[in-house]
């Protein structure tokens, strides 16, 4: 009997060059959710998005970290395989937005996998096949989720947000992809119908555990048989902080690298299998990561040959990275998720997001482009409104990607804005390291300490949801090192891996 189609291409040299992770800095105590519904309980804390974060901004941050760890320029990546159960646009250019923000070539391939929290695994599997088939030489795989649990569901006390990015090569790496198996059963686990805002829970927790989760995971693992070495470390599903133990018992896992992830960040959906594997990627040996959801379970075996670049900083991201974490309230989380809505009609912004002005202005913001004068070298930002040089008036210029770090020239902290803006909101004029100057929003947590002369780096954020459409652009974050002071400027303008900053110096697109 031949190997089932879902069990993959067999032995291939496909390998892992680097990994990156990103989690929002906000932490919601699960117990606070319980209190909100007049209940006791709730364990651990959940990594939750602020109003300007979503699965796309987290994906961008993880991608930057992974590319930096892999030493690969964004423009040289063959394609983007992104898995998320809930893309920011249910229909629309989610993948294209992310590709532009990461800085991929416009000819890059890939796909957006969705539909369940199995989507991250789906993205990995699809990229693996593309690499094995020789369609691309390298692939960026991202698993990210920022699910919106239904109000009053048990998942509210368990749902976190996070992203993991893997850079894969057709020609080996620090870890090799060894084997995989997927098994499918048409069962209803978590679900969200068309038009529903929040994800619904399984019908009955015991039924889900006994007849869906455990049998489904076991069937995928059983299919791998002895291709999972006895000493493998396991990343296993743990959607509520308790089921992980039962799953480990069911598959006979002795060493579980995903232990301890849930209490810190909650269930991160598509990203969970990969976050759970990080602790196993820092040292050599076999790893088995299992993802489940949407009636499908997949087990993947990796062989870590040398510590995977980026795995250490990615693990640190679970703790919030260099910026640390901050406690947030249940009400603020509901507002960020769009579940707490004021009675008054929102005031629409000036320009509809489908309009010509947006079409002209969107890509240059996502890709953070400037117009560099061919004569005097001055960089004007953004290009669409600068047909000539602002310094010398020359008409000859080319598009460049701007540096992603710089120094604060001056700033304000805006306290008085109508929705969708949330105060306090710093805005800073920043002298970027390439000599250009921009003015961008900052992070609320930097409002108190921001000062002229501070070093900052740029992060992709969701500026607004306008008429239902997410609008993305860059904001600045104050850089602090672990001693509390600003770190020295690095030669190439990039920052630490967990911060997720891509050096695009090698990826400049030149157009006349």
């Amino acid at each position, binding site marked *: 009997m031949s190997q089932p189609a879902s069990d993959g291409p067999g032995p291939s040299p496909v390998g892992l060059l680097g990994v990156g992770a990103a989690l929002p800095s906000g932490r919601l105590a699960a117990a606070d959710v319980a209190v909100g519904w007049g209940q006791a309980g709730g364990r651990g804390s959940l990594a939750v998005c602020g109003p300007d974060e979503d699965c796309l901004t987290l994906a961008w941050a993880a991608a930057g970290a992974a590319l930096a760890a892999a030493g690969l320029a964004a423009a040289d990546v063959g394609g983007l395989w992104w898995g998320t159960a809930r893309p920011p646009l249910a229909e629309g250019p989610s993948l294209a937005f992310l590709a532009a923000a990461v800085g991929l070539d416009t000819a890059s391939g890939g796909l957006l996998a969705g539909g369940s929290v199995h989507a991250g695994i789906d993205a990995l599997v699809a990229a693996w096949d593309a690499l094995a088939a020789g369609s691309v030489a390298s692939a960026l795989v991202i698993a990210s989720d920022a699910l919106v649990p239904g109000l009053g569901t048990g998942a509210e006390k368990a749902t976190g947000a996070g992203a993991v990015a893997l850079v894969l090569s057709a020609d080996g790496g620090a870890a090799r992809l060894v084997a995989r198996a997927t098994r499918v059963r048409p069962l209803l686990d978590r679900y969200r119908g068309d038009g529903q805002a929040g994800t619904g829970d399984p019908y009955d927790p015991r039924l889900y555990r006994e007849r869906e989760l455990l049998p489904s995971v076991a069937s995928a693992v059983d299919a791998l048989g002895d291709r999972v070495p006895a000493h493998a470390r396991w990343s296993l599903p743990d959607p509520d902080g308790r089921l992980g133990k039962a799953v480990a018992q069911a598959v006979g896992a002795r060493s579980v690298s995903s232990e301890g992830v849930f209490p810190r960040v909650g269930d991160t959906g598509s990203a969970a299998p990969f976050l759970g594997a990080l602790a196993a990627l820092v040292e050599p040996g076999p790893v088995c990561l299992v993802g489940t959801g949407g009636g499908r379970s997949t087990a993947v075996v990796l062989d870590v040959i040398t510590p995977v670049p980026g795995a250490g900083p990615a693990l640190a991201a679970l703790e919030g990275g260099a910026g640390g974490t901050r406690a947030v309230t249940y009400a603020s989380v509901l507002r960020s998720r769009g579940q707490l809505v004021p009675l008054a009609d929102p005031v629409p912004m000036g320009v509809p997001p489908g309009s010509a002005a947006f079409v002209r202005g969107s890509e240059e913001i996502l890709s953070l482009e400037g117009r560099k004068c061919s004569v005097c070298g001055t960089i004007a930002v953004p290009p669409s409104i600068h047909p000539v040089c602002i310094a010398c008036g020359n008409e000859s210029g080319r598009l460049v990607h701007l540096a992603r770090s710089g120094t604060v020239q001056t*700033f*304000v*902290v*805006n306290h*008085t804005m*109508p929705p969708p803006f949330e105060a306090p909101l710093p*805005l800073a*004029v920043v002298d970027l390291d390439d000599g250009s100057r921009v003015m961008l929003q900052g992070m609320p947590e930097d*409002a108190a300490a921001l000062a002229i002369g501070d070093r900052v780096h740029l992060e992709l954020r969701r500026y607004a949801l306008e008429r239902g459409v997410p609008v993305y652009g860059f904001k600045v974050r104050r850089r602090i090192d672990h001693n509390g002071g600003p770190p020295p400027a690095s030669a190439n303008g990039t920052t630490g891996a967990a911060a997720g900053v891509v050096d695009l110096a090698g990826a400049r697109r030149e157009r006349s």
Partner: protein
Amino acid sequence: MSWNRVAVVGGGLIRFGELFDQSYEKMAHGAFSAAVASVDKGFEPTQVEAAIVATQRGTLWGQEGIGGNTVPTAIGLAGVPCTRVENACPSGSDAFRIGAMVVASGVHDVVLVIGVEKMRDKSTDEGLLSRAAAGHPIYNRAETAPVLFAPFATRHMYEFGTTREMLASVAVKNHHNGTLDPYAHFQSEITVEQVLASPPVCHPLHLLDCCPQTDGAAAVILVNAERAREFTDKPVWVAGFGVATDHPYLHEKSTFTGLPVTTAAAERAYAMAGVGPDQMDMAEVHDCFTITEILDIEDLGFVEKGKGGVASLEGETAIGGRIPVNPSGGLLSKGHPIGATGVAQITECYWQLRGEVGERQVEIRHGNALQHNVGGRGSGVSVVNILTTNNP
């Protein structure tokens, strides 16, 4: 310079404030009537040969967007040539400059310049948001009006040691002056402590560092200087004017300790008038925020760069000081109905030079007064007009 000299022979305005009970048209009519009534020897509305209307935010705020069409009917002059001028916060002062040029050209001898602005017909939130979304559709976000000036305060404090107390002293002075001006939106004294303790709006600016949102209208009548005596024995002459532009976005600015656009406009106006800042008896300048007045008095040449805060704190710009600034109360106290603001400032200069404003009268030694507005997306437009009692 070969241009027909221009005289101001009348000026008037309505009491500025939240005029919920007055339409755009009613405000225009009120200002026009006040200007007509102010002419010493009498003035028939039908003597107006052409009108220039300043309304800045018409199309954005839902008020009558086509002011050049709306105002003639509102003031009983349907049929008169009329054009709307929009040039950001200096719309009113630029309408005055253009009106002066129309008279100077010899095409018309009697021109009405009228500024009208409805700021309060839409909610504060909506007003803030329309400002916050101006410019590039994505790049410029959350840039409410204070964001366009507060970065200058941050940097001015950093470079020169300017303090919040110095900023506050501008608001205290202008609110005091406003108590002496029956047309001012606010007519009560405030203290430095109150300014410092007011809620933060946009760090480092607090609520009382900011001008209010105000409805208002103002009008002046310009005539060919050769005909001025038909209307008054105390005409005030247009001595000079200047307008300048700069890049509109803050990240394009060459400095955050001043507005070179104002210096450029002032240099043109001073050159045209043949006078300098030392020969001004008073100035009505753009104080949308306290920091703006400090930048203005430096950029206009009244005080050395970096010394604007100290000069304000020490009373150099008070009525009775070395160079009285904003005796009308300024934008901070009188209010800032954008299109009307510059025209109302001209009216104040006209009255001051004629010695007609009672308690807030400044000493007239040289016979010169300066009017100034600056604004735009990022203070990209500045206009300076100079009036004089010295014969042309």
